[in-house]
């Protein structure tokens, strides 16, 4: 049964190859492959939920030689989010690119990106992760430059260079680990790794490389132009999924592989960078003139929130309190995934209809598309962290953790971040209450508005009121904290 682990990577890869070979029918092939991929991803999540962690080694050569695949609670949760979000993006893209020449270029690259994404979540081998990250970075940059506009190409050129630098730094860390411990498998390394100077150096290199790729605060400069100038479905995928892959790796390496050497000092450094990201990202989002630039800076801020969990996790002994914090961190990552994808898809519709996305002149268009504006409202409330969204539960547990561990200084950061986020979300929403004529009906174009609405709704109602499954999948059970 563990052999099925390869499917979420193999199916989109084959789909991508077929879409390349048959450009005329790339949309059809793409949509079918998207359906199959999300089904395979969700089935893996289901298997992990029912039977616990899955692991296999490809090629039948055993761990040190062969490449291992593993799916535990964390990867299963992110795999499920990625499957659902990517499926919604695919349906949206079907109509967004309908009839445009870009469609034949979009689908193959999109399926390769999806295959790499699933590969990152399932990989258990450090070098395999390097190749996955490269495939992810390359296809994301190529997709970002699809519009062909000057700003998009310049932004994606810089994104590609930054991605290469990040991957090389990560690879040097892997080289040092292989030098010292002679294996690339995460499981084996975890057993052999001890608090030696080489391990600390490798940790520093790998985490800084990945931090560059996940746009953690001082290294975030490349993200806003790249995500704001990409086509709507691509920027949704970039912000909701691609950035999450690097964060997922940092979380896994930090809490599992490098557990023996990650101490409170290093974790607090990450926390401080996260706090900087929250404040700087929210401030820039408030001042952004374009809707998609606002969403991109909001991503920088939301990634900051995720890093606030590191110092709290480092200061708590393993137990239900620490499990709750870990699950809350995963919940916030999932909610941001759904909400940001919904927000970008809706923003793309507004841009497509208005011809621009300058916030100050969006009033009329927003009012004529009630479903889209409603998605922006729902997704916005999830980004701010207002109840009943999943990020509200995440922030509740984050603040509780801050109180319980006595690290109260994370509270003003969270509070200020929430207020700034409320300011920039409602700056957009207040445009939707102008003196425009009443819209005739709620949904104007079902095939694009429904995915955005469902994504936003999932981040608010689904994760807000039923976050139990996240704890269950992570195997923390229902022990009342």
């Amino acid at each position, binding site marked *: 049964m563990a052999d099925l682990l390869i499917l979420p990577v193999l199916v989109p890869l084959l789909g991508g190859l077929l879409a390349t070979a048959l450009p005329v029918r790339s949309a059809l092939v793409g949509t079918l492959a998207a359906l199959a991929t999300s089904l395979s991803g969700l089935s893996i999540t289901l298997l992990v939920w029912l039977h616990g962690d899955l692991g296999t080694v490809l*090629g039948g050569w055993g761990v040190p030689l062969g490449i291992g695949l593993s799916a535990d609670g964390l990867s299963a949760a992110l795999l499920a989010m990625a499957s659902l979000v990517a499926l919604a993006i695919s349906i949206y893209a079907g109509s967004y690119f309908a009839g445009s020449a870009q469609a034949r270029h979009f689908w193959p690259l999109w399926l390769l990106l999806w295959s790499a994404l699933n590969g990152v979540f399932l990989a258990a081998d450090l070098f395999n992760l390097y190749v996955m990250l490269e495939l992810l970075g390359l296809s994301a940059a190529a997709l970002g*430059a699809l519009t062909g506009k000057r700003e998009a190409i310049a932004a994606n050129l810089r994104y590609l260079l930054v991605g290469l630098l990040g991957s090389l730094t990560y690879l040097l860390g892997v080289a040092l680990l292989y030098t010292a411990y002679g294996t690339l498998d995460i499981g084996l390394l975890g057993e052999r790794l001890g608090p030696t100077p080489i391990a600390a150096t490798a940790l520093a290199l790998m985490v800084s490389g990945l931090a560059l790729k996940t746009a953690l605060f001082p290294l975030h400069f490349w993200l806003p132009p790249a995500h704001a100038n990409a086509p709507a479905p691509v920027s949704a995928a970039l912000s909701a999924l691609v950035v999450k892959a690097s964060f997922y790796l940092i979380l896994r390496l930090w809490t599992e592989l490098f557990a023996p050497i990650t101490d409170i000092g290093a974790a607090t450094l990450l926390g401080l960078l996260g706090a900087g990201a929250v404040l700087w990202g929210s401030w820039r989002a408030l001042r952004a003139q374009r809707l998609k630039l606002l969403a991109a800076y909001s991503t920088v801020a939301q990634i900051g929130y995720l890093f606030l969990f590191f110092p709290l996790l480092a200061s708590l002994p393993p137990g239900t309190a620490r499990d709750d914090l870990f699950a809350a961190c995963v919940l916030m990552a999932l909610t941001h995934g759904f909400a940001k994808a919904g927000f970008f898809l809706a923003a793309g519709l507004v841009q497509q209809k208005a011809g621009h996305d300058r916030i100050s002149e969006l009033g009329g268009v927003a009012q004529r598309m009630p479903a889209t504006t409603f998605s922006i409202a729902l997704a916005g409330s999830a980004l701010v962290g207002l109840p009943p969204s999943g990020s509200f539960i995440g922030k509740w547990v984050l603040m509780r953790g801050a109180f319980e561990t006595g690290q109260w200084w994370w509270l003003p950061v969270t509070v200020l971040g929430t207020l700034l986020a409320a300011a920039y979300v409602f700056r957009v929403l207040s445009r939707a209450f102008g003196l425009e004529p009443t819209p005739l009906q709620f949904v104007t174009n079902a095939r694009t508005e429904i995915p955005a609405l469902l994504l936003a709704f999932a981040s608010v109602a689904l994760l807000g009121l039923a976050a139990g499954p996240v704890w269950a999948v992570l195997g923390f059970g229902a022990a009342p904290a």
Partner: protein
Amino acid sequence: MKRDLALLLGILLALLAALLLWALHATLALEPGPRLAELASARLEQTGVSNPVTAVLLNYRAYDTLLELAVLLAALLGIWSLGPAPAGYQRSGPALAALVDWIVPLAILAGGYMLWVGGHAPGGAFQAGALLGAAGVILRLSGEPSAGLPGEPAQRWLVVLGAGVFALVGGGLLASGFGFLTYPPGQAKWLILLIESAATVAIGVTLTAAYVGGRPGSGTAHNGTGQSRTVQR
């Protein structure tokens, strides 16, 4: 200002390098042992090839190689999505044309040999593919705008061939119960050869198409700005 910023960076990176060197030295001093060398060569004969690197590439860590072909394809798709190919080069003079008529077939032949020898001696799919790519580059430089590449449909199928065969073989093995990319004992050699030859052709076409640098569009390509560029000197 530029000058001392560069200097500051230099000092910082020198410190980083020193730190890394010290860490490397500390590790190597502990004699960390043969790592995977012994294990790889010990089970070499079960892999169906005698060249250890090819064994690792196509048997132990075949998954990496499959993804690497996908990376190559992603790069080419990115190049194709950016626009039509720039104008070709000036028709070469008689001397170069004659040289090209000799070198290109030779390169293709050498590529084939490189592919075959890869099983038991240094060589393999990537080096062979690179030689085919070199042949394409030479054709392109000698004034052949299509660099020896077929029309768009054929190019698309060829480019997809490498990763396609690899994934289909893997999927087939998975479906027939062996597990993804777990070669049955007897057929490892032939399956690897099949995958390698498909990969060689795919890599050759991909590298050449990358060098051409644009969508295999209709007729002589002119650059994005619409007017046909004068042929580059």
